[in-house]
């Protein structure tokens, strides 16, 4: 009986995966033409060195767009990213400004980083974009073309590129399958607003109406919250079909684990009960139970291998749609699916997460809970660890 339930779930999972691919195809076929090109302030919060940082930042200075400014915002002049920002500024002195201000009060470090830059930005439209994003020359034009009077926020699809290390390859596989497909499914068929921090364009008037930075300063998933607040205010959250590139070249395996554990915890705090539907987007994981429950019979192994083949074919097709070739990464698909399935369980054990050198504890809607004092057990553990290391 249980075996049949799993088999049914695998079939449902493959169907959902197929629907996700349809959603992606539909999204990519969308085209928006608008001659509306208002001046835009691009805010780039920086912290530390990302892969390809110089080119990423420079790509925002090469936009084919009539009037815009680029603001690099940092909290500390000693941040290694400052040197890179300064070099870009020397290259594009009329376009780029650097703002260093660590005095603002916000528990979310990215928000804390941006408040001063936002205050100093010149134009009524502003775009927030992460430092690990690379864009082509037509990015700004195409993104702004999605902005209408009823639109509160325009966000973009992300594609992982340039993976050289195992960690980076796994990261890009996850971005180019689960993340992009789930985003399109939510947007196209479920009509759930989905905003992605890698690129968010807003009007200052709308942003301030939903509470501005005060509304998101203590929220870890500030991108999700912005989308939610805009939606509640009756403003549209538009997912542009323009894909921005998230350059992940030399990620370590632990960094891949860290990011997806963090994202899983965030999704659990945001989605609540809906989080339990996520394994349905991992047919390979579900089908791995079949041989286990059926004593590795020839039939059960055949079902597992067929699911594997279907999953790899789907991922291969997706990679062609988004023009991000899989190459040798194809061999990592089953491993990645298994790892992410295990990661799915982590949020039930811990709500503590690490991001860019800081440790956070999060509550409902990813509200950051200050957690300066480590538990006594952890203190004892750390002391013992130090003692043994010596």
């Amino acid at each position, binding site marked *: 009986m249980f075996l049949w339930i799993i088999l049914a779930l695998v079939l449902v999972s493959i169907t959902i995966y197929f629907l996700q691919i349809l959603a992606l195809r539909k999204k990519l076929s969308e085209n928006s033409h608008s001659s509306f090109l208002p001046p835009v302030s691009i805010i780039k919060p920086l912290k*530390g*060195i990302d*892969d*390809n*940082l*110089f*080119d990423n930042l420079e790509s925002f200075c090469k936009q084919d767009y009539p009037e815009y400014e680029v603001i690099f915002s940092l909290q500390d002049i000693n941040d*290694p*990213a400052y*040197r*890179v920002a*300064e*070099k870009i500024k*020397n290259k594009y002195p009329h376009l780029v400004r650097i703002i260093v201000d660590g005095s603002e009060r916000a528990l979310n470090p990215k928000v804390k980083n941006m408040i001063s830059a936002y205050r100093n930005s010149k134009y009524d439209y502003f775009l927030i974009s992460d430092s690990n994003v690379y864009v082509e020359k037509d990015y700004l034009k195409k993104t702004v073309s999605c902005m209408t009077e009823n639109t509160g926020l325009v966000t973009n699809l992300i594609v992982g590129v340039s993976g*050289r*290390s195992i960690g980076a390859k796994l990261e890009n596989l996850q971005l180019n399958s689960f993340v992009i497909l789930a985003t399109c499914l939510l947007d196209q068929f479920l009509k759930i607003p989905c905003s992605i921090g890698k690129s968010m364009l807003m009007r200052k008037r709308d942003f301030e109406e939903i509470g501005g930075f005060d509304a998101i300063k203590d929220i870890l998933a500030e991108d999700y919250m912005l989308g939610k607040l805009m939606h509640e205010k009756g403003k549209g959250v538009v997912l542009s079909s323009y894909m921005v590139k998230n350059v992940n*070249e*030399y990620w*370590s395996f632990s960094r891949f684990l860290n990011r997806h554990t963090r994202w899983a915890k965030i999704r659990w705090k945001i989605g609540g009960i809906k989080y339990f539907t996520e394994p349905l987007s991992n047919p390979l994981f579900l089908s791995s139970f079949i041989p286990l429950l059926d004593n590795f019979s020839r039939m059960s192994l055949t079902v597992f291998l067929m699911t594997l083949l279907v999953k790899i074919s789907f991922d291969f097709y997706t990679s062609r749609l988004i023009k991000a070739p899989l190459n040798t990464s194809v061999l990592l698909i089953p491993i990645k699916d298994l790892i992410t399935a295990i990661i799915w369980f982590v949020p039930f054990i811990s709500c503590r997460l690490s991001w860019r050198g800081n440790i956070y504890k999060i509550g409902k809607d990813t509200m950051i809970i200050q957690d300066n004092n480590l538990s006594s057990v952890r203190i004892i553990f750390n002391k013992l660890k130090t003692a043994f290391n010596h």
Partner: protein
Amino acid sequence: MLLCDFHIHTKYSDGSLELRKVVDIFGQAGFDVIAITDHVVNGDSLIGKFAHRFRFTITEKNFNEYMENIKYEAQRAWNKYEMLVIPGVEISKNYLSSEKSAHLLILDIKDFIPACESYENIFLEAKKQNALIVACHPHHMRGEIRNTLYLWNNRHIYGKYIDAWEIANRDDVFNVVSLKKYPYIANSDFHKPIHLYSWKTLLKTEKDIISIKKCIKHNKGVAITLFRG
């Protein structure tokens, strides 16, 4: 201050990345000055023969090609990143015994210097080429079975030829260099991308080769930093 790394390997010896990729990694991270220093290994020992057999070394034969490529990449790095790329080699005298082994960087090298020459000849040839000589990882390193201690143990003989000593190499710090008050720099000994995050040198000088060599030699305006990205 200029952020510098003077000890970097590429696929020309035992590094994991091509020269172009290495230049880009440092350029993308905002570095001001780097030196490409692939190994020139002695061929008169078992370990040296192994390096020659598996091409983990620059030889007289491919030295010109190596220099040409560095020159090309230096121009590209300057145009794109305003980063200075200095040609160099790491003369590697490898033996089974740590006491006999030594590695030294020759920065701003012009002509090939064979590693099987005597130390005196190597130093004099480097001086003739107006290159900078740096003793690298001169003391015991954590977790390393084969150390390169020869130059440190014979510093009373060779100290006068050496322009600077590596006070830190990747994650190791050699406090003996500090105690002796020798001129110092710190480098990554870069072989793979993760080595980007390691000890580096900061120089307070102009971004040109003459000023940089002078700054290291006189060791004024030199600081080290642990680059953590």
